[in-house]
């Protein structure tokens, strides 16, 4: 049995706190009061909204069967949009639903955000490193760029870029050409862009094999370096090995693919020549009355003679056959004219009427057209090589540019505005990150005999990245949110499209909810990525 405690022990009774001073009671009371306040204000707002919507017409929650119910809040989004969108990454007609219009807006925002993030990072890295450069001029200019851009509003910069720079560019026929293949004009920016033909996939397999080869050789040589302690120039050998595989893959896919074919009449004797291209060369040379198609001989002819003797080619619009065949003809200095048709049967009909000398396209297409001709045996099927990737450069033909990729003035304005603005903030982050690495680290690296490049790559950057990456991801988030300013330069991003939807449908609450949910999803996704990265890279303290 436990001994009883002596009664003479001095036991101080616990103080009795009156309930109006007890922190726990006050806390719960505060909660309850807060809940009541929130619920009361929400219900007051809800009441006002209901009254306001009633006066507005009450068609806010109209269902298909005529009744009005909360579940039909978003049913209006399935009705026809009746407005056009300037830039569409996917197909969109004015008869499509509001949902489709919203998707187009969302895709536009994602497109400008991703391209903007990549370019802004490059610019910011370069500017941030330039501020810390030894060269006084370079560092002051970079600092000036950062200072001016960070202290000027983004909207002013966007207006300046759009109205005072891009829209002041000359007309198409007088376009600025800063580099061959680049056209800057009022209609936007045209630049060369690779076109991927169907035979890109086999070559992709070889590329992946080349990467594996690179990796294997890299690991082997690293192992040998560790064992023998001697440098083995592994970069050179691994890259060579990878490149050999990729180049071999290029020539193999070139020789063994049979995707492309052309139709020529037997009379032209193109097929009898050692190669189809040589035959075409001979054909055009004969037409122009030249012994050989050399550059000097062609320059002596005037435009009319060239146009008369040029090779007439029939192709289907926007098929990869066009840039593929054009690249091969350009290599031979063959003058040619492309006749583009919307549909294969139109091209076949033009070939049958002898508008063009040769019909080029996919093998199945050419075979079908050959079968549709009156005299199939009078025409020969010739194989044309198909390059896996063709660089399509824009060319001025008449009043239009053909080929290459286009950036509309609006897209160019919002993209460059965002890149320049966010690049300045990223440059600040990069600069402070590199300066956060203690100077002793650099001194130790130099004492160990590392070159400047090795010091940056192996000592400074890994430590600097730890400081740079969290604010960097928040700048990416800022760029995505700032892309909403596209409405000021008429680029149809998410905010611009939803603004039109709101004005047309009159459903303010639903549209605002949709916009907020879309942006919140993007923000939360990026924040989650940031938190995951932070937890992985967080320094484990002692």
């Amino acid at each position, binding site marked *: 049995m436990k001994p009883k405690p002596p009664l003479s022990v001095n036991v101080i009774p616990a103080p009795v706190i009156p309930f109006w001073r007890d*922190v*726990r009671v006050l*806390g*719960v009371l*505060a*909660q*309850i009061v807060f*809940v009541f306040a*929130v619920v009361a204000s929400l219900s007051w*707002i809800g009441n*006002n*909204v209901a*009254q*306001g*919507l009633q006066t507005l017409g009450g068609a806010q929650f109209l*269902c*298909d*069967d005529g009744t009005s*119910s*909360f*579940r*039909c809040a*978003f*049913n209006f989004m*399935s009705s026809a949009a009746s407005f056009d969108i300037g830039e569409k990454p996917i197909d969109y007609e004015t008869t499509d639903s509001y949902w489709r219009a919203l998707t187009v807006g969302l895709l536009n925002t994602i497109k400008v955000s991703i391209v903007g993030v990549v370019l802004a990072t490059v610019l910011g890295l370069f500017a941030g490193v330039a501020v810390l450069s*030894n*060269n*006084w*001029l*370079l560092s002051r*200019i970079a600092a000036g760029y950062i200072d*001016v851009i*960070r*202290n*000027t*509003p*983004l*909207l*002013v910069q966007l*207006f*300046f870029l759009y*109205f*005072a720079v891009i829209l002041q560019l000359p007309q198409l026929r007088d376009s600025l050409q800063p580099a061959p293949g680049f056209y800057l004009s009022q209609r936007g920016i045209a630049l060369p862009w690779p076109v991927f033909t169907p035979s890109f996939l086999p070559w992709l397999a070889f590329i992946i094999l080349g990467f594996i080869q690179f990796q294997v050789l890299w690991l082997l040589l690293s192992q040998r370096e560790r064992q023998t302690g001697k440098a083995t120039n592994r970069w050179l050998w691994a890259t060579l090995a990878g490149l050999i595989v990729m180049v071999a893959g290029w020539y193999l896919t070139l020789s063994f693919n049979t995707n492309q074919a052309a139709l020529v009449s037997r009379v032209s004797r193109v097929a009898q020549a050692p190669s189809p291209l040589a035959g075409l060369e001979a054909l055009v040379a004969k037409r122009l009355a030249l012994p050989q198609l050399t550059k000097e001989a062609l320059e002596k002819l005037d435009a009319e003679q060239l146009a008369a003797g040029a090779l007439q080619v029939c192709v289907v619009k926007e098929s990869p056959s066009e840039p593929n065949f054009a690249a091969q003809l350009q290599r031979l200095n063959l003058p040619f004219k492309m006749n583009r048709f919307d549909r294969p049967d139109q091209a076949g009909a033009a070939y049958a009427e002898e508008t063009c000398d040769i019909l080029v396209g996919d093998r199945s297409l050419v075979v079908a057209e050959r079968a549709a001709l009156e005299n199939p045996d009078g025409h020969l099927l010739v194989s044309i090589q198909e390059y896996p990737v063709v660089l399509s450069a824009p060319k001025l033909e008449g009043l239009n540019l053909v080929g290459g990729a286009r950036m509309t003035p609006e897209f160019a304005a919002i993209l460059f505005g965002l890149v320049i603005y966010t690049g300045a903030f990223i440059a600040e982050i990069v600069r402070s990150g590199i300066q956060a690495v203690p100077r002793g680290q650099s001194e130790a690296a130099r004492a160990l005999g590392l070159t400047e490049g090795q010091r940056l790559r192996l000592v400074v950057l890994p430590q600097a990245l730890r400081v740079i990456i969290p604010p960097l991801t928040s700048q990416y988030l800022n760029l995505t*949110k700032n892309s*909403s*300013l596209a*409405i*000021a330069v008429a680029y149809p991003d998410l*905010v611009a499209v939803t*603004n039109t939807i*709101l004005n047309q449908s009159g459903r*303010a*609450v639903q549209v*605002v909810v949709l*916009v*907020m949910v879309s*942006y*919140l999803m993007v*923000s*939360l996704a990026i924040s989650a990525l940031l938190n995951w990265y932070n937890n992985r890279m967080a320094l484990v303290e002692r």
Partner: protein
Amino acid sequence: MATLTQSLGSRPRLLAAEITGWFQENVLGAPYKTLFNLGLAWAALAVFQSQLETAPALAGVIGGLWVVGLLGVVFSALTHRFNAVTQWLKDRLYNSPTSALVTLLILLLLSGLARAGLAWAVTEANFSADPEAVSASAHTGATWGILLANLKLFMVGQFDNDQLWRVWACVGLLVGLSVVSLPVYGPFKEQLRPIRRVVTGLWLLSPVVFWVLLRGVGESGFLSQIETRTWGGLLLTLIISVFAIVVSFPLGVLLALGRRSTILGIPAWLTYSVVGGVGAWGLVTYTRPNLALARTPLEYVLILWPLWLLVAGIAFQRVFKGNVVAAFCTVYIEGVRGVPLITVLFMANFLLPLFLPPGTIIENAVRAMWGFMFFSAAYLAENVRGGLQSIPKGQYEAAQALGLNTFQQLWFIILPQALRVVIPPIVGQFIGLFKDTTLVAVVGLFDLLGIANAAVAQPDWLGLRQEVYVFVSLVYYIGCFAMAVTSQRLERRLRVGQQ
């Protein structure tokens, strides 16, 4: 020449060895860098050629200066004798071949830009404010008349001309207070201590005075109400910024404190019973009848709202432990921080009239001001929360041990330390807010940028966008720069970053 041979003295072979050594190390030993330098040299030559065509004198001077600098540095390097100028040149401009070429390139490009800029802005610009004189002249540069003729519009928008005395009164008050504050908070702090309280009180009262002056009170009299739609230009920008900054500050601090609060939450049984009850009622009255009528997936989602309510209740209890204050503050902060400012402005524009009793009229400028205020409060709350987290726990405990109640703890111990630490990010955020007021141009208000766009649309001054945007950028740059300098002064005075 004599110096060179003297300092070389009898050691020409050493000099030759030095030069060959440098050559071997920097040119032969670094092939990729040499290739890059050759590319740079080619680019510099191309730029030099094009500059020679357009401005031969300037290009020649620049090229000559560069060559002189290069020769000076090479000479000093060979003789191992540097003076202050050549030392600085070698360290900062001619450090390596790459650096020297970059110097040349930048000098050429900068001089070309400066020449073109000066020509556009000054030499070939027109400074008359008379539209007829401007259209008669054949200048190729800027037409600054658009600014000179519309100066009043840019400064105060469409403010009533007879009421302009109010703006002048505000300006006078501001200038007067600043002039008085300089000695009171500065060199004569001790001598003028008695009136320091008065001056602080006047500063705290000034927003109210400005509001009364600019908005007016009452229907008649010399301080009668004027419509906010007459506010415009720089005046509107300043009003919106100051309102948003001043009103969002206490709200932001409250939100931060609320998010970090650890008061006892609603007990779990209460939450689950309330949520369960409402959910069950909703299921019975709404979900069951409407389930058959639903067609699209989104309709199903909306019909099942009692289930989402249950999920929200569980999440609320698990994450926030029933703390409604913390939950509300967190949801508000994260929600507002996740959306762009322009959507908040659109929301304020379209939804604020809906949220208030039907028939209340809120003017556009007031809607924008409230939108900015709510937006700024969320970002401010995050900054203040960072400051609160940085205070050592011992401070909180010592304050409690001293027997101070919550308000006294916050006012005397916690907040002074927290706010001192986060002055840089807070001022950065205020600078951002000042720049973001340009967004009201998109919702139809005529702030400085909106007036600029409107001025360009006038038939007399059509299309002169470059001039107005340069002016607007300059105004914002000066404002942001002033705020940044003030922040640095404040940091130094309050010894931020030092223990």
